[in-house]
């Protein structure tokens, strides 16, 4: 198996994009290609991550459209759909293709255009990820899932609403330093705690926004990376695992077992342990998830994630900064593109290009991209490759 490097990355500003899905996919892809200094290269393959183009922009076979728009023809091109973990899945498959020796130059682009549909339509489309007869038809939404998990945590571990507000305030503060973030506005703990109720006990400020956005990376074998750029980022490991679809049927509904399994795989492959990680991007579609994932990845003991938040461990200047980009909460959540936006942020962090939100001495990084409600998780571990 060959070592694989990310030699270029780029993204669009998340939020409400004036352009269509293909415009933002092309913009992020061309930025990644220029960043890799690969404008004149031939590409072997293109993986496009997207969850709902057929429903939100009435367009299918979007990978064929992207290779046409940016002329990567005749590269092999396909779309990967794995819910909000589509980008993590696409990167994983692209990694395997390069590591195996089958492809040398690969573009991986995640893109989602969600502002074309009304909020209730998007909420319904996202809810179709749940079990069709045992969950969906009963009126469940993803915020309702987040709310039920929050209540279990409050009951069992003494988590309070204030902890959720602290995560939101931290992520808003980070987003304010990220020119690519959807939400660039400070939020106070008191402000978050007086926002409207979405799914009790989750208020508006503990729930991510609906965003348009795209992010892309270029991969090649690590031993060829220096022909392009000085600071390649090595993909040190990945993990990918699933769990029972309905939350009620899981061994313990308060445990994200797919996160636990995927991280174990990723740490084993990378030859690392949680304490080695300097910075992480995790999937905080709801602020409770940042806390639960930080435990199930292994950064903190189960039930103690909220204590780490209280102590500032996960703040930008803490021992383990989490979501320096602002996370899904502030950077935004363009479902199929979110996992790639996490990777792009971490590549910039490792290269030291994050300006005001730069994490000091970031050498090893972890991304947790999460599909369904925690039943399909892709983890990647990145490190400096120079």
């Amino acid at each position, binding site marked *: 198996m060959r070592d694989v490097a990310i030699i270029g990355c780029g993204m669009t500003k998340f939020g409400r994009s004036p352009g269509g899905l293909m415009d933002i996919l092309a913009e992020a892809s061309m930025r990644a290609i220029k960043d890799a200094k690969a404008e004149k290269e031939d590409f072997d393959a293109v993986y496009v991550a997207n969850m709902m183009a057929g429903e939100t922009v009435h367009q299918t076979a979007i990978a064929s459209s992207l290779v046409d728009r940016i002329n990567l023809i005749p590269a092999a091109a396909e779309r990967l759909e794995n819910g909000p973990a589509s980008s993590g899945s696409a990167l994983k498959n692209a990694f395997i293709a390069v590591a195996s020796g089958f492809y040398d130059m690969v573009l991986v682009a995640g893109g989602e255009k969600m502002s074309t549909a009304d909020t209730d339509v998007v909420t319904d489309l996202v809810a179709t990820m749940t079990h069709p007869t045992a969950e969906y038809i*009963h*009126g*469940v939404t993803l915020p309702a899932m987040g709310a039920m998990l929050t*209540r279990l945590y409050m009951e069992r571990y003494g988590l309070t609403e204030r902890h959720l507000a602290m995560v939101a305030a931290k992520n808003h503060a980070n987003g304010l330093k990220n020119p690519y973030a959807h939400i660039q506005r400070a939020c106070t703990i008191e402000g978050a705690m007086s926002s409207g109720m979405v*799914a009790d006990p989750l208020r508006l400020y503990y729930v991510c926004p609906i965003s348009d956005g795209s992010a892309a990376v270029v991969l090649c074998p690590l031993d060829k990376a220096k022909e392009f750029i000085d600071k390649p980022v090595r993909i040190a490991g990945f993990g990918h695992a699933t769990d029972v679809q309905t939350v009620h049927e899981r061994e313990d*509904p308060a445990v994200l077992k797919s996160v636990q399994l995927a991280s174990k795989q990723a740490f084993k492959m990378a030859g690392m342990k949680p304490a080695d990680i300097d910075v992480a991007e995790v999937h905080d579609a709801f602020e409770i998830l940042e806390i639960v994932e930080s435990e199930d990845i292994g950064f903190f003991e189960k039930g103690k994630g909220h204590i780490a938040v209280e102590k500032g461990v996960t703040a930008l200047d803490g021992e383990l900064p989490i979501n320096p980009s602002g996370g899904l909460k502030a950077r935004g959540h363009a479902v199929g593109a979110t996992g790639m936006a996490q990777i792009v942020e971490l590549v910039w962090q490792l290269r030291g290009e994050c300006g005001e939100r730069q994490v000091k001495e970031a050498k090893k990084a972890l991304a947790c991209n999460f599909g369904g409600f925690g039943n399909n998780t892709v983890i990647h571990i990145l490190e400096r490759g120079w």
Partner: protein
Amino acid sequence: MEKFIGYKCKSCGRVMYPKHDRCLTCKGIEFEEVELGKEAKLVTYTKLYAVPEGIEMPPLTLGIVDFGNNVRAFGQIMTDDPQLGMRLRPVWGKLRKLRGKDIYGFKFEPIEKS
């Protein structure tokens, strides 16, 4: 009368809901239909204010209930005053409208303290 049905693995006895074609515990592939139970306890819940289409009056109370032995189900809880641990029974009724059609299924009604 409609019965709230689960699937009991003929090899290991585990009861599952919804249906799986290989047992979640032992990978057994033969099942018999069993009634999940007449009484369950509320494990967690939410009062959903941002309701999806076809739900008439927010908030909608949703929750996970436990029939015992880790046999659980998810559904609508028919009270505005949910309490963790409260006793509930499954009842058949209209859940919502979905794309113009009435959808029926089991929801959970509090059992009055006697």
